[in-house]
């Protein structure tokens, strides 16, 4: 039995026409996809992470393929916050929710980027990428130490009144603890997961597959880990969770909603299929219709654990 479906969701104060955003670093600054589909067919865009100054990234090779996944170590390459505001943001259509993503190497610089972004007319919100190595802590990621993460959220919260989302690192013992710290410091939502830290070897040369050595694993391979973390985090906090990790189809996205995500982000799938985000949005709607849900938002958190679950 098919019903008309209301796809709108509210993500921490931002109204999205459907729950599909694009993940930071996988959708450029958005306009690259304009040849493939009308951007307002998706819920919104999270742009490539920005630093205070423009930065160039790592030497190649920067990417490698793995079973049902890919590795990347792009480095901090981006146009910088000012060029983003001046040159990239204006290219995006009116009315499309755009979140700017921020990463930096110390907390003051994170806060400064947030401050500059807060004046922008078109921005719907900020996403703080906490997977960046904290230089002063010898390479540990901000998102890997709960005190560091709490301070990062506090200072970026203070720097901006835009809706604030914290994108967590999955390379932690307990994601719930990290989610709770974000909630306690006033974040409007959390996004997860970022890539899993990983490594591959080129057997012809016995060098790492990436020049950087370590890289981040993304794609369908990591989806079951992402679903676990989204489920754990959404049980631990009341603020909304945005689910990310290996989403290729509408069904994959529905799994995240069922596990408690209010919205999702499509990442690696955009590379293999520039229409992926639209197809995911359509697929969610189809699933909702086929299963008698009048509103997509009613799918959120509907996971029914078995009674005798241990």
């Amino acid at each position, binding site marked *: 039995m098919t019903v008309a479906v209301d796809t709108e969701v509210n993500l921490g104060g931002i109204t999205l026409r459907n729950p599909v955003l694009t993940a930071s670093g996988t959708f450029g600054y958005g306009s690259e996809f304009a040849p493939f589909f009308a951007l307002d067919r998706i819920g919104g865009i999270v742009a490539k992470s920005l630093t205070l100054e423009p930065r160039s990234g790592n030497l190649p090779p920067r990417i490698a393929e793995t079973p049902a996944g890919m590795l990347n170590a792009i480095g901090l*390459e981006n146009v910088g916050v000012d060029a983003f505001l001046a040159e990239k943001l204006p290219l995006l259509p009116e009315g499309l929710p755009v979140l700017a993503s921020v990463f930096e190497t110390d907390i003051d610089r994170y806060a400064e980027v947030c401050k500059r972004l807060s004046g922008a007319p078109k921005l719907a919100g900020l996403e703080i990428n906490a997977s960046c190595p904290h230089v002063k802590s010898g390479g540990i990621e901000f998102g890997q130490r709960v005190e560091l993460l709490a301070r990062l959220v506090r200072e970026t919260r203070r720097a901006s009144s835009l809706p604030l989302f914290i994108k967590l690192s999955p390379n932690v013992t307990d994601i719930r603890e990290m989610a709770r710290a974000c909630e306690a410091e006033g974040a409007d939502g959390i996004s997860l997961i970022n890539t899993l830290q990983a490594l591959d070897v080129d057997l012809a040369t016995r060098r790492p597959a990436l020049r950087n050595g370590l890289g981040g694993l993304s794609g369908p391979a990591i989806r079951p880990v992402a679903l676990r973390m989204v489920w754990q985090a959404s049980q631990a906090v009341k603020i909304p969770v945005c689910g990310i990790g290996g989403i290729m189809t509408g069904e994959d996205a529905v799994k995240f909603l069922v596990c408690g995500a209010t919205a999702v982000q499509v990442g690696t799938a955009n590379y293999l299929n520039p229409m992926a985000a639209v197809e995911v949005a359509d697929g969610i709607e189809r699933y909702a219709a086929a299963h008698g849900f009048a509103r997509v938002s009613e799918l959120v958190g509907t996971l029914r654990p078995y009674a005798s679950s241990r």
Partner: protein
Amino acid sequence: MSASPSPPAIRVDAEVRANQEEGAENRRLRLGVPGWPGSAPGQFAMLSPGSRGAAERYDPLLPRPMAVYRTVPEAGGAELEILYKLSGRGTRLLADARPGATVRVVGPLGVGFPLPQLGQRALLVGGGTGIASLYELAAAAQARGPVVVLLGARSAADLMGRADFVALGVDLRVATEDGSEGTPGRVTELLETALAAPDAGGEIVYACGPTPMMRRAAEIAARRECRCLVSLENRMACGFGVCLGCAVPRTEGGFALVCRDGPVLDAGSVRWEEAS
């Protein structure tokens, strides 16, 4: 003298019409591509070898960049020819596709070759799979001046597309490492000879092939003060400028994106020492 204008890219499911062996590990794929908007010489497409078949599969995950070897416009689209070589998993799975199967295509992508000035002699240097990037350039350059095509391979059996270049009627010279066809040795030696000829001067050189070959071609051209354009074959995830995976370091600092700023780049703009 800038590259031909590029039509906007499309994403489409193409139908395999043929997928034939051509010499040892070379294959020729013919695809019926609905809505194909045409392409400029040197542009490429992303082909998904992995998802083909009755159900989506995500191993291998990424599409492979392949030069548009040749296109034949037809009602509602075009027939695309791709020449490729079995090298890894991606290409071997592509070779599995039989007539009737579906291959996802995203393209045309990238910035192709600037054409020679009117009357300017063009030297096209192709090695290995790089040859596939040069056919449409050879055809277009012929309309503007004399064209010399220098092709290299390990042996005669490895050589791609030879007969097509012969049919074009260009001045074709071949080098093979084992001497099984043409001059024994490397294709860059043919370039050196061609540029050392008494009538040489003012040529434009185009090179596509393994990185050491392109680097060597660039050196030879630079010594003769010829402009040299190279078409790079970096690893790619997206092909349209959003993953930043295909970056190549530039002499002036920073990176070019092979898929968006290239694949054709001025040889002098590439910092070769760190280019792979």
